[in-house]
């Protein structure tokens, strides 16, 4: 599979994301600069973390006007998978590809630590290979990761099974204490109604090898690869 890893000015998890899919998982990929305007030949897009455009105005607000984001809109509309990680999640929300928004952490602190994550919905390209009882240990690193959506959007997300990941404690319970940023319903990641665009605040690309302290993040990429491969076969 061929991955596009987008690069905006001040993306800083681009190297890690490409390393995870190419060196760790053995697939193809390359960086795609934000001024490019085509995603032809790619099977999946990763929008990595960072502080695109210095987080000016709001996180992700300026990045969505980059030429490459027009191509991402088309890529997503064609049903192809797009994964936004951290700042990538913020960009997807600002671009209207995912509902809701990410606001300042409830604590006002930048939180940089490992958290526990539960995959609460198996029916998606990003979670299909994650065992339902598996608690993922994955790092977060953000100041604006508090997920917000109005009541009707939140109800819709839940009834459609669009909430993919929640912050939980080591026992897998979504408690207030295990919520690092004040996100509504402990939401760490969601997908769109068509299920091919997902975003999450935690960094699975930083947890793909045991030497990094956890390889749990691999399950998210492996789910995506499995989904893409089964689609190619059909």
């Amino acid at each position, binding site marked *: 599979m061929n991955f596009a890893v987008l690069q905006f000015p001040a993306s800083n998890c681009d190297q890690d994301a490409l390393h995870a899919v190419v060196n760790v998982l053995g697939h193809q990929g390359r960086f795609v600069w934000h001024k490019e305007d085509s995603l032809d030949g790619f099977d999946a897009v990763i929008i990595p973390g960072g502080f695109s455009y210095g987080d000016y105005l709001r996180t992700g607000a300026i990045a969505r006007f980059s030429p490459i984001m027009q191509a991402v809109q088309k890529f997503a509309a064609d049903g192809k998978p797009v994964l936004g990680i951290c700042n990538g999640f913020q960009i997807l929300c600002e671009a209207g590809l995912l509902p809701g*928004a990410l606001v300042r952490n409830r604590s006002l602190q930048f939180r940089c630590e490992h958290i526990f994550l539960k995959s609460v919905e198996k029916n998606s390209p990003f979670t299909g290979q994650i065992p339902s009882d598996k608690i993922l240990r994955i790092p977060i690193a953000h100041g604006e990761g508090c997920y917000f959506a109005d009541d009707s959007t939140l109800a819709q997300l839940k009834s459609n099974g669009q909430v993919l990941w929640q912050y939980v404690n080591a026992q897998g319970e979504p408690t207030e204490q295990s919520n690092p940023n004040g996100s509504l319903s402990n939401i760490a990641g969601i997908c769109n109604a068509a299920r091919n665009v997902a975003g999450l605040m935690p960094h699975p690309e930083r947890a793909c090898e045991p030497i990094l302290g956890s390889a749990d993040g691999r399950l998210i990429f492996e789910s995506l690869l499995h989904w893409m491969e089964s689609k190619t076969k059909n």
Partner: protein
Amino acid sequence: MKAKIIVTPKKAVVDPQGKTVQGALEHLGFKGIGAVHVGKYLEIELPDGDAEGWRKKIDEACHKLLSNPVIEEYQFTIE
């Protein structure tokens, strides 16, 4: 002519910055104050004339870029 724009968080969105500033003010002895809301102030310089036309354009700019309608409200004047 200038557009003066104020963007504030919606009431439904928790505003930890506002709460923290409120706490700090109370700590300083400013007793009896209510909730504090922290927002943004933007000024955009405009050519003189056609205030009504600019009002429409600034409204569109606020809606599309300067605020995020999911979490923020805006108000502006053209002076």
